[in-house]
């Protein structure tokens, strides 16, 4: 997890910038339509059972950059196909009092999961191994191309050698 600390710091500024530009009025923040996001408990159980990576999308009701992500990035059929094939998907409302159960057995709210994972803004994306170990945490708006690069970074194991920022720089 430590390897992502610097990425988080750097990403904070870009998150702020991304939250200030480019969204329409009346943005809502809910899971993107047409995706198969599961409740967190169910998703984690499935990830453990199938030994697959868990993709956690932290959103917020009314979050404009979540809406932008849904409309511009997650609507891309390439992204949708890759993520539904390669990950178990779950959406967490970072202000919700709805409860979920962690693999440790601890029962907490969706908001408290955000506290645990240091979700300081939305959208915020986590890739978790089946044992719960985070392998990537990515704050802020991501383009469709970013999501596809993230998929390659996780799926092909590049996270073991380098940060996503380094991986992304090496692709250009």
């Amino acid at each position, binding site marked *: 997890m430590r390897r992502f*600390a610097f990425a988080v710091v750097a990403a904070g500024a870009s998150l*702020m910038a991304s939250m200030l530009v480019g969204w329409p009025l009346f943005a809502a923040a809910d899971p993107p339509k047409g995706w198969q996001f599961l409740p967190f408990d169910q998703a984690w159980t499935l990830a453990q059972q199938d030994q697959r990576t868990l993709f956690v999308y932290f959103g917020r*009701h009314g979050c404009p950059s979540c809406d932008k992500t849904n409309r511009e990035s997650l609507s891309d059929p390439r992204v949708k196909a890759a993520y539904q094939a390669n990950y178990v998907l779950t959406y967490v409302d970072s*202000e919700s009092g709805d409860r979920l159960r962690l693999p440790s057995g601890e029962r907490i709210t969706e908001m408290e999961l955000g506290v*645990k994972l*240091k979700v300081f803004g939305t959208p915020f994306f986590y890739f978790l191994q089946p044992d719960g170990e985070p392998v990537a945490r990515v704050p802020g708006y991501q383009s469709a191309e970013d999501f596809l690069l993230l998929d390659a970074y996780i799926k092909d194991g590049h996270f073991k050698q380098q940060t996503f920022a380094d991986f992304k720089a090496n692709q250009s």
Partner: protein
Amino acid sequence: MIRGALLVGGLYLPSLVSASPWTFDDPVTVASHSERPYFHHLDGAGRMHIAASSVEVALIWEDDRSGAPQVYVAVKPHSGKSFPRTDQVSDGAEAYEPAITTIGEHRWLAAWEQDGAVVARVIAADGLGPVCLLGEKTSRQVVLASDHSERIAALWAHQQRGGQLIVSADLRVEADKVTLAAPPVPLSRLTDRPYQGFPAAAWAADGRLLVAWEDRRAGHTRLFHSWRDSGQPFAPAHQLNQHFAPTGEEGKHVGLGTGVMRVSLAIDEGGMARTVWLDKRDAKSGYAVWGAASHDGGLSFGPNQRVQDALGDAVAQWHASVAGGKPGFVAAWDDTREDWADPSEPGDVLVSWNSGSGWSDDLLVPGASGEGYQGSPAVTIDPRGDLHLVWIERDDLSSPTRLRYLRGAIDGD
């Protein structure tokens, strides 16, 4: 680390605010894991997990020591150094999000969510009263308000018609039994797609019930406040948090509003009301602690004020709680300012106080800061002016938990 960065940048200023009005005792562990690790939670609406009379302090929380989440209480005389025991007060399959308030010396009223409903019971020195059903199935997020005139009210969220509405009911306590004194009334009229949640409540000095809550009907979360006289409907609601729609290029609004959540409400000895909440109007570092004050007994609230100091700006704040009393107000929360990039430093408890001249510099609470996670605080002030604080301690954000408590004795008495 942040202080160091500010020093390098030439921005550090010496503290200009007076020292804490309290002298803190050593913390005590109220309940901790033994053979079987378990998890405590302080996550109720309004953060009403601690209450104090002139002679005792009471704590209420949820933990899963029995294998299922249940609600427990511990009571200690002010003269005692530790809590002699913990008692389970819930009696269902699962229980969550409790609240507690004092209803006289050696008497407390507790409420919580149990198996999807909201219930309450009296806790007295000679035992527990019967459990009373307040809100039927699909109810949650209960808070309590009591005052020295034996006025007691409960508010909770009730899911209905595809949404969730908050209702309020006056309660009657006779001996060890609590009952509904009148049918619950809604905070506001039913509208399409209602979503109200996480209420907070307190009695004003003139006998009005003050309330604040979250509302999602506008497509993002807003905070509202209202009040009612006994037996009357609630006054029209007014928005508590100032509206901040994100703006883009050329200052054009591009979103509905920034995030806010988990309002807490308190009255001080002089009858002034204050609220605090988590507010993400400054998006770069997550939620911060903001609040508003009422100088007319809760009829209206003034401009929003940032509660935390500038040293907290670079990190997110969580679990904001406010209490009022003889010395004014105190707010408590947790954040990671001491080492924000280090995953092994996951949080400390901080307080700020306000005696009428603005919120103080923040204080890392001695005994509730340092190694490991110390967070999710709840705070109250007893009639003497002493501060009482309860929080969760754990080695890291995944490890089993300990419930910790300390008192801050008011200076000068």
